[in-house]
């Protein structure tokens, strides 16, 4: 059913679903949505020991088993190939660190960190595709193996698997219900319903987690305070993208540069509400970004500000 759903998606989502394997539909669309933005929102990556080993062309084992990739293979490569290899190394190192952080505290692993890991997975997937595009097929295959290992480690996180499993189960129930109501629905449509409903589950979990974490200022206005020096717009954008997983951009041109996004609903449609992001420069007031949400008539504004 889920494979059939690919026919309904854009090319971007089709690409992602191919990578999902047994991780379930939530993972599939999550990564799908993250792919297009991963490059622009990824935090600057500091080269780690993991990268250094690769860059030095050493032969010792790396932290994640077979993740070590020799740079010698690209010794006579073009600048495009060297750039592609560097991108692979950085993306793999970043994913490795992120998975470590999720596994360190599996019981506390909130949905946001899992989503961040998905960003990093998406970044590595893109880097692998890029490497293939410049002719580094052998290296790409080895990093594909790194990706599989890191994904396996991520799946071992209890919170991660539970969230995905719950989301996928919810999506499946929604699709079953839709099928009972209308047996003529095609597998493609049912797959679409399952994915949307699963993403609704993810949005709901993340929104609840976010609001619990936010400092409550009132019944509808919440504030997320960041340490001084942190980039407010970047964090707000990252949060907006995570909250709007599976959403569809509406044709409404309001609510900032991102426009308003229509959120999936529990039944697999797109009536789950609206979400918008206004970056600092797009506000007329206090010059700090804000996320505006209408979830089934419940209105929420989340300010992202620096700590006083």
């Amino acid at each position, binding site marked *: 059913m889920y494979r059939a759903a690919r026919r309904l998606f854009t090319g971007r989502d089709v690409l992602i679903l191919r990578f999902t394997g047994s991780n379930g539909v939530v993972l599939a669309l999550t990564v799908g949505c993250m792919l297009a933005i991963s490059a622009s929102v990824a935090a600057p990556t500091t080269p780690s020991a993991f990268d250094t080993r690769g860059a030095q062309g050493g032969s010792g084992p790396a932290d994640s088993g077979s993740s070590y990739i020799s740079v010698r293979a690209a010794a006579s490569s073009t600048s495009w190939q060297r750039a592609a290899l560097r991108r692979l190394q950085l993306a793999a190192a970043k994913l490795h660190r992120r998975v470590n952080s999720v596994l360190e505290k599996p019981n506390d692993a909130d949905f946001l960190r899992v989503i961040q890991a998905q960003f990093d997975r998406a970044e590595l997937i893109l880097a692998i595709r890029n490497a293939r595009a410049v002719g580094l097929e052998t290296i790409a295959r080895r990093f594909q193996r790194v990706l599989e290992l890191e994904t396996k480690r991520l799946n071992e996180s209890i919170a991660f698997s539970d969230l995905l499993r719950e989301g996928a189960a919810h999506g499946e129930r929604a699709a079953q219900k839709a099928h009972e109501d209308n047996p003529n629905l095609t597998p493609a449509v049912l797959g679409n319903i399952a994915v949307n409903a699963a993403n609704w589950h993810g949005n709901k979990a993340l929104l609840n987690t976010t609001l619990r974490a936010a400092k409550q200022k009132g019944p*509808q*206005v919440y504030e997320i305070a960041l340490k001084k020096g942190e980039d407010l717009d970047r964090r707000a954008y990252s949060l907006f993208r995570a909250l709007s997983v599976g959403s569809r951009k509406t044709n409404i041109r309001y609510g900032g540069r991102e426009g308003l996004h229509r959120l999936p609903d529990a039944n697999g449609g797109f009536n789950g509400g*609206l979400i918008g992001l206004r970056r600092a420069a797009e506000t*007329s*007031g206090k*010059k700090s970004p804000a996320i*505006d949400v*209408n979830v089934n008539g419940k*209105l929420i*504004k989340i300010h992202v500000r620096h700590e006083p």
Partner: protein
Amino acid sequence: MSATNPDAGGSRELASADRSGAARAFKAVFRGFEPYGRPFKASVPARLLAYEAEPWKAKPWGLNDGALVALLQAADDHDLERVFVSVDDPEDSSFDEGHYLLSPLNLENYTHPGPTDAWPILPHAIYPPSGQWGVISSDESHVLVGGSEKFIDDLSAGLGKTQDEMIAAWLEDWSEHQDRDPDGELRIGDWIPAQLAHVVGPERAEVTLGASRLRRWDLPT
């Protein structure tokens, strides 16, 4: 005073048939969609700035319950039967989005929007087909209202706070926001003096601004 309409339909997107009526009504009271500027036409005789300083009572983008009740009491019943809600100037925007009809305007319809209605999470203008009054909200919790002297007096009485009290609270909150930008680099609240002069007149605005902690308050010449 309450409005009832046997054909009450809650909130719905504006149909194209309503387009000219909405644009005409909007232009009768507003110069433009300017929640942080000077939204009312010169012909609008009285204006009011409503502000709720208590964060748990404030509505992030629109009228809070108390202000809406005061508005419902101040307005003519006829003007509440059908009320337009727009997130932009109806003449300037493509008309298939961002414009709604609340029928009637009441607490239920305003506070229980549809799941995908855009106006509840955006600054919006509220105005009746007669164009007798207009409300424009912001996403910083202040609301501007324009209309006849009697309408504004009645509304002000219903709010339970004087205009001076609300403006003082508003300026104090913005002074605090400016405190975190002492060099004025972010230009926080630079629009406030012009807007205040638009609402209460330049002389009264100057006195009020002078008494506030606002760091920068050059009035427009």
